């Protein structure tokens, strides 16, 4: 079965061009170079129809950029994105628009994502009318239907975004995305700004919508608890690369990559009392100047010489499990983390 979305060696670079003063300085031999950030660095993964894939990582790891590339908001600098088996870059304008409509985004800051000067009925109804999904005369009825789907009272459709609470604004953002009948929702930290009791309501809504509308989700979040709850598979990112990709249960039970292990150890848990916080040393390095080889080696307790030179490939380490770590090729020094023999295959 062809995956719904497939990414092959997708990279996204952001370049800061030299300004006039720097160009002049270069004439005098200053040797300044353009600064390049590799926000995503040759990432490959597939998303099956109806699946929820969680993207986790710390700030600056490229998870939001990856979400935006999947949603078609950013074009990749290199590599191929396919949607329903077809290369998105090769689509003509009409097909491209259909693909863009089929993948919608729900953002973190719902106050910033909604136009404060428009009424909710316009915010939700504008896109489906423009794209010819509903006639202008049927807009009000259609908006009312979408609002009911996300648990909003259609009687409030003439109000402005600021007249709603944070949780309701999240629902408006979701309703706007759903109004164009997408197949995929890319949720970028969509519940991060909400209180826990409201977050629970919105997460339940996502799960109900998935069941009712058969949606596929890419769920970008730094909150491992949220991702564990909602995702079927989880991709862990570090400095622009996926370091581990695995079914959710397996990942949380037996994380393979040292970074995933460290990340899971740091998550505060409700049932851990007065624990001793023992921290992973150091901070995430600047993506302007990432470490050589495996990006994680300066912070990794198991790093050895090869980690400083070779970039580890994302290799299969078990059914549906992939990890990018040289330790999986060696006699594993990590206690209890040995991978069964024969499981190491070329990715």
């Amino acid at each position, binding site marked *: 079965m062809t995956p719904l979305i497939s990414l092959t060696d997708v990279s996204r670079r952001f370049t800061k061009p030299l300004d006039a003063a720097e160009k002049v300085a270069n004439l005098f031999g200053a040797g300044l170079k353009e600064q390049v950030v590799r926000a995503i660095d040759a990432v490959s993964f597939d998303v099956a129809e109806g699946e929820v894939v969680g993207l986790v990582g710390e700030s600056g790891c490229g998870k939001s950029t990856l979400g935006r590339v999947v949603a078609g908001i950013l074009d990749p600098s290199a590599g191929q994105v396919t949607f329903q088996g077809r290369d998105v870059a090769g689509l003509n304008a009409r097909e491209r628009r259909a693909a863009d409509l089929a993948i919608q985004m729900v953002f973190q800051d719902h106050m910033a994502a909604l136009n404060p000067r428009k009424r909710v009925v316009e915010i939700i109804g504008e896109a489906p009318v423009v794209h010819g999904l509903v006639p202008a005369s049927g807009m009000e009825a259609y908006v009312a239907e979408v609002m009911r789907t996300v648990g909003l009272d259609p009687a409030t459709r003439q109000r402005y975004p600021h007249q709603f609470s944070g949780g309701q604004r999240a629902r408006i953002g979701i309703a706007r995305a759903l109004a164009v009948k997408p197949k995929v929702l890319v949720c970028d930290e969509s519940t991060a700004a909400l*209180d826990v009791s409201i977050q629970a309501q919105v997460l*339940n809504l996502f799960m109900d919508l998935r069941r009712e509308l058969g949606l596929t989700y890419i769920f970008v979040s730094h909150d491992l*608890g949220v991702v564990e709850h909602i995702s079927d598979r989880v991709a862990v990112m570090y400095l622009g690369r996926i370091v581990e990709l695995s079914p959710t249960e397996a990942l949380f039970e037996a994380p393979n990559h040292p970074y995933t292990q460290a990340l899971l150890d740091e998550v505060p*848990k409700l049932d851990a009392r007065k624990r001793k916080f023992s*921290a992973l040393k150091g901070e995430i390095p600047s993506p302007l100047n990432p470490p050589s080889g495996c990006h994680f080696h300066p912070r990794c307790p198991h790093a050895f010489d090869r980690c400083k030179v070779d970039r580890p490939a994302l290799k299969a380490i078990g059914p549906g499990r992939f990890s990018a770590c040289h330790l999986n090729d060696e006699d594993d020094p990590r206690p209890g983390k040995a991978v069964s023999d024969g499981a190491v295959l070329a990715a």
Partner: protein
Amino acid sequence: MTAAILSVRDLTVTFGTREGPLTAVDGVSFNVHRGEVLGLVGESGSGKSVTGLAILGLIDAPGQIAGGSIRLEGEELVGKPEGELRRLRGKRLAMIFQDPMTTLNPVLRIDTQMIEAVRAHDKVSEKAARARARQALVQVGIPSPDERLTAYPHQFSGGMRQRVAIATALLHRPAVLIADEPTTALDVTIQAQILAEVQNLCTETGTAMVWVTHDLSVIAGLADRIAVMYAGRVVETGTVADTLERPIHPYTAGLIASVPSRNKRGVPLAQIPGMTPSLGRLPPGCPFHPRCPRATAVCKSVIPAATPYEASRSARCHHPLLGPETVAA
């Protein structure tokens, strides 16, 4: 039991608005002992941050402390003149905020700011003050402190900035540190580093801490006692273990149940219906009753009083989740 370092009794803070005064903090009481960490938990608008600010005397007009008492080592802070409060702030009382970029002055070097903080309270030479600032940076785990002292705040990462803010707050080894969501904006690995350092420092110096947060999981690992706030009132207090394992108030139970990691994957999360009420339109009786699964007629008319339970617990609820046998005599 020894006397509490910080004792808050019936603290009430109101804000004047066009529609009349709003009570943001309503009769809040708690004690914090030496070396103890109190977790003050609540959702947005529950009054947890205002409580923290009131302790430092940082409530500005249109807000005011309308009643109650705040005692620091027996000394009453409510009604103290601003000049005396200034001498306490940064010395015996300190605060760290959520966003360190707003705590630090962006146009001054770190050394300037830290030396100023040292010399604001102690008559020492600039050289001695610098040595103390350097030592404080070392304590919070900042590498190459000599170079970092001469840097500006924007040259630090978010986690490092928060460390500088913490180092500055702890310069005078305060008796009480109020921490208002200081790790909320940070990544989990950085949060864990900061929590580890704060934990060590408070153990070493015996500083009592009030940790204000919405994140129950952080409190679970860090605090000794917990106070849960809802609509300006403390609805439940007790030790962290008692409160999280056997909550008394339905709101506490609802909060615990809605944390994703407590729930089975794929199963709908337990949720508290409705939303936090606006302070201007609080329902009569127990403010939680419209969202509460146990509410009855009495909840709609009578505000529940704080009732003691077991050894050191208390809750405001007409229909507590623990039976009457646990009510302390």
